């Protein structure tokens, strides 16, 4: 399994629909300060079901919706879709491609979809259970938090072993 494509629209500074094709191996994102690199990491964590607005650096969850710029109005929804290549059937569904989508409207309504079918957050969580992706796993290291795993208390550190077990 690998992350094959990322489709973002209205999420943080990605106002326009943006499609990112990713290969296996090592991909680097580079660019000036404030250009939107960490927002891509936030988009992935959000689509995987992140529930804490604070961990997405916002106050309320609506802060992930494009809030406008000097020349543009705010969007009324944010949407992120992760398209996983599932040829090796790591994800327990019988498809070569699995698309996981999350949507949030400025009204507060939110939706999750798997392969364009509405589902619950619980279904997204179950889809990724045991794969080392999503949830509290250590495969996404946020900016400035590389040593957070070490600095966390002794009980927090257990989580790494529990994931592996």
């Amino acid at each position, binding site marked *: *399994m*690998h*992350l094959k494509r990322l489709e973002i629209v209205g999420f*943080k*500074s*990605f*106002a*326009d629909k*943006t499609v990112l094709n*990713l*290969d*296996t*191996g*090592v*991909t*680097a*994102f*580079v*660019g*000036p300060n*404030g*250009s*939107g*690199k960490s*927002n*891509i*990491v936030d988009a*992935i964590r959000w689509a995987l079901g992140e529930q804490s607005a604070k961990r997405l650096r916002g106050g309320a969850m609506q802060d992930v919706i494009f809030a*406008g*710029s*000097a*020349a*543009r109005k705010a969007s009324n929804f944010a949407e992120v879709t992760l398209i996983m290549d599932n040829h090796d059937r*790591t994800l327990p569904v019988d498809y070569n491609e699995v698309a996981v989508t999350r949507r949030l409207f400025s009204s507060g309504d939110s939706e999750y979809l798997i392969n364009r079918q509405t589902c619950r957050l619980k279904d997204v969580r179950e889809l990724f259970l045991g794969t*080392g*992706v999503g949830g509290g*796993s*250590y*495969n*996404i*290291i946020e*900016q*400035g938090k*590389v*040593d*957070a*795993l*070490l*600095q966390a*208390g*002794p*009980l927090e*550190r*257990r989580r*790494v*072993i*529990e*994931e*592996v*077990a």
Partner: protein
Amino acid sequence: CRERFSEALEKVAANFQELFRKLFQGGDVKLRLLEGDVLEAGLEVVVRPPGKEPRILSLLSGGEKAMTAIALIMAAFKASPSPFCLLDEVDGPLDEANVERLNMIVQEFAYSTQFVLITHNKLTMTYADTIYGVAMEEAGISKYLKTDLVRADENLAVAD
């Protein structure tokens, strides 16, 4: 459950020592269970950089802490590979030699795990298979374009 936890701990602890030695070119690291029941007790980490005495984590330098954390993450990956891994400017606190070692480890794991790295470090860029430049040509609106090392260099200098 207890057995699985103890087994996983043993595996990760052994990998941690191996990867720590690779990243630091020597030294030791211990991942130990504190007193108490296997299913509840916390984990302690004791680090000894090469040529130094064992230290509590907080006395380590910024770069030493980052490299130790990277060794732990990769140790867990080795025990139970994850399909992808996102690292946002983990090379920030590192000196040139450690940036090199970090990238060597990432390359080693890249056959089983997909890596996405965010970086300002030119050395790290040379190791990437693909480079995307992210910029705001229109103020406040993020766009990206596939780029190569030469253009990434110019982009970084020009885009601002």
